[in-house]
């Protein structure tokens, strides 16, 4: 189950392929296996997220939205994907 998240669901847009090299990254505290070579934009899309509504922290550094396309997801990366929710 190389691409499965913790609930066993396959991320949107991910393709099953034995030939793909896989990497492990941490996303919001959970380790996930992803195919190598994705950009941050592709990571977000594979999770069904709209990049314009997501703030990305990569390895404790905020990633400017303009850099989502050009930033590769690398093995061992740790991402925090956050958004606004109701609060006081």
């Amino acid at each position, binding site marked *: 189950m190389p691409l499965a998240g913790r609930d066993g669901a396959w991320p949107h847009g991910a393709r099953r392929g034995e030939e793909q090299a896989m990497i492990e990254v941490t996303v919001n505290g959970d380790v996930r296996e992803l195919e190598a070579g994705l950009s941050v934009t592709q990571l977000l899309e594979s999770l069904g997220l709209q990049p314009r509504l997501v703030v990305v922290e990569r390895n404790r550094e905020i990633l400017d939205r303009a850099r989502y396309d050009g930033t590769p997801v690398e093995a061992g990366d740790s991402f*925090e*994907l956050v958004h*606004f929710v109701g609060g006081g």
Partner: protein
Amino acid sequence: MQADVALEIAGRRFGSRLIVGTGKYRSNEAMEQAIAASGAEMVTVAVRRIDLDRTHEEGILHHLDPGRIFLLPNTAGCYTAEDAVRYARLGRAAGLSDWVKLEVIGDQRTLLPDVFATLAAAQQLVGEGFKVLAYTNEDVVTALRLEDAGCSAVMPLASPIGSGLGLVNPYFVREIKTRLHCPVIVDAGVGTASDACETMEQGVDGILMNTAIAEATDPVRMAQAMRLAVAAGREAYLAGRMPRREVAVPSSPLAGMLA
């Protein structure tokens, strides 16, 4: 009779002196209706991890249009200056503004602020160009220090967050308003309309509330009540109340009584 001036924070004007939170509503629809009924032009939001196992519609930007209502990201839930700075930066990275409602909690039971960490975070964030609206207790010295640090508004509590106990220390809140030059917004503790009215009667510039509206049996109706109470309290403050007396003074003339 002169019209009241608008609430102005960091050069931005707001038509309402009521700021509301967006947490704890039973539904997003109830939240949207309550905000509309409150007349608030600024609402607070929290920064949280996206739950990747659930629908993504829970994000508040699916329900509020930041072009129509000003969103103020908070640092709620942070217990250290470092965490608060991290959350503030994440909120700014959403690209809406460089404003933050700074909140650093020091005690889980009372949710009272850690004023030392709040001051340290305020200094850091002001240095990074943030417009900082700092939640604090009703301590006058802390309020002065936060203003000195460059905060755009200082926000003393009426009573603990979510307690609904109302304004427990009107004297110190009034003193804070007297001593500071920046806007003073009372944040937290208001429970019902009379609390909001009494708070505004102290002369503060505005009130920030969440639970009093969200946990009312009818949040939309309470939002309307709060809008009216804030306006009434403001008008009463501007009007200048009569002195309190320990003895009665008749309202009808003593002269002209029948023999």
